[in-house]
């Protein structure tokens, strides 16, 4: 099994045609940080010790039926493009990508369940799916975690909970996040106040791929900031309610746009379509921003002949790692941007996409 086998299909967070429920709340993820009781944390342990810890943890992780014939790679087996692809598929973090011997990722073949070994913590268990069903994800990862805890002695204290390398994760060690697509709120300049409001209740909002609230393709990740002093279930209920509210906000913004600013909306979608059809150089940021506008157009029936699933596939295939692997070579940035523009033009033409106004 190689990373190449992954790239021909959409990632677990982007399953094709996952339905209208995933239009705004695109995907959800839960990560649990866990550590061995009597071993130095990965950053402090040094490479040889990490190798020893990996050799101990990996068979335990892979023995669990949850992973159903697990796939896995030690980071040292992977070239830079492989690592980029795994990052783009949300299977590893950039921190894990920067490591080598002694760090690994193990995943179920459908990619929805995965484990990073020796990232910042000895274990980072992850489950992800399209949509925003965090409670379902919690049940799954909770069972997986419980099974693993019977094989591996966890570092845990009754006062501080699961002990982690960074004190910001101590307690539940749980980071739940939902990726939301908010083009209309962005267009109406209403993202800032929403972000501020969420910060006040202990939730972080980060743009995907961008710094701070700069978001690539109007995608934002809403996640909990705190892990100590609130139980998993309470937190997940709260986050689910917030995402529900955000979805309503975005829908309202879309309705307001259509009603009060129809020209602005058409201009936004139409311009994006025009550039995507005619551009010969596109960097990822610009491409994702324009595809976000196109997605809005599709979801509001302003663009014909291309399904959301097809768009998801296109979005993923133009990310730098995926793009280079499909081109079968390392490409300098300028060539990548040309190839990306060409792929976008051809896919849109093939799909017969055209504005419906």
């Amino acid at each position, binding site marked *: 099994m190689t990373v190449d086998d992954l790239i021909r299909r959409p990632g677990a967070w982007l399953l094709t045609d996952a339905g209208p429920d995933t239009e705004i709340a695109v995907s959800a993820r839960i990560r649990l940080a866990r550590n061995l009781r009597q071993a130095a944390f990965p950053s402090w342990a040094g490479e040889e010790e990490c190798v020893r810890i990996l050799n101990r943890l990996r068979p335990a992780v892979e023995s669990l039926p949850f992973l159903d014939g697990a796939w896995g790679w030690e980071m040292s087996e992977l070239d830079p493009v492989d690592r980029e692809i795994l990052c783009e598929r949300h299977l590893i973090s950039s921190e894990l990508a920067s490591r080598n011997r002694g760090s690994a990722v193990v995943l179920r073949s459908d990619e929805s369940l995965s484990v990073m070994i020796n990232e910042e913590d000895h274990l980072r268990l992850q489950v992800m799916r399209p949509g925003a069903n965090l409670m379902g994800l919690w049940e799954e990862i909770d069972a997986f975690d419980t099974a693993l805890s019977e094989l591996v002695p966890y570092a845990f204290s009754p006062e501080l909970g699961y002990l982690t390398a960074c004190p910001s994760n101590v307690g*539940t060690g749980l980071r739940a996040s939902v990726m939301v697509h908010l083009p209309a709120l962005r267009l109406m300049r209403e993202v800032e106040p929403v972000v501020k409001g969420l910060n006040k209740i202990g939730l972080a909002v980060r743009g995907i791929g961008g710094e701070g609230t700069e978001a690539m393709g109007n995608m934002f990740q809403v996640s909990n900031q*705190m892990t100590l002093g609130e139980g998993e279930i309470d937190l997940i209920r709260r986050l689910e309610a917030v995402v529900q509210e955000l979805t309503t906000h975005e829908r309202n913004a879309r309705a307001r746009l259509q009603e009060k600013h129809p020209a602005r909306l058409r201009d936004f979608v139409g311009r994006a379509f025009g550039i995507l059809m005619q551009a010969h150089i596109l960097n990822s940021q610009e491409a994702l921003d324009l595809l976000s506008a196109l997605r809005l157009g599709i979801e509001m029936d302003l663009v014909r002949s291309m399904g959301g699933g097809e768009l998801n596939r296109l979005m993923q295939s133009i990310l730098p790692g995926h793009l280079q692997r499909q081109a079968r070579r390392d490409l300098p940035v300028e060539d990548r941007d040309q190839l990306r523009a060409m792929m976008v033009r051809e896919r849109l033409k093939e799909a017969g996409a055209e504005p419906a106004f």
Partner: protein
Amino acid sequence: MKCQACGANPATVHLTQVMDGKVREIHLCESCAEQGGVNLQNALSLSELLLKIGVPEEGAATPDGAERSCPGCHMRRSDFKKTSRLGCAECYTAFSADLAPLIASMHKGERHVGKTPPGGLVTPVVMPVVPVPSSPAETPSIPVGPTPEQLHKQLAAAIVVENYEEAALLRDQIRLLEEVLARVPAKGTPP
């Protein structure tokens, strides 16, 4: 007021963050604030900032003047300040004086609420031996921790993955626990 990071210069930058109805404050001198890249636009910078510039200097040294370090992994306090990552689980005990204010400022509460690993507890790895009760009125309590069955399960698992080090530890733990349990009358059994 002195700067909470360097403890030397007067604090001129005062940051307040209200999160979940809890007010958190930090007072810094200008240079420490700058070093931490204080960004007044970013409401979430406080915890990150605390991590970056480190924590108050109290408890830096042991009584004999040596720098405090973790007996489990030999991380020194200065190492933690540099990387803002702990070295091992035991560091939480070794640097508790430094960590308490940091953890309080970062989180909603100061005590864990939520899941407890069902199989194995807890910080002390070797089970404490419960002394034989001197008077029958004092019924000793069973120490909180895994049952012998759970430990046997873990032991079997450790052997499967050929982790003999862990297996040896577990074997000791089981022996101890069984000894303790043998001395504790079962529930409902008359003394």
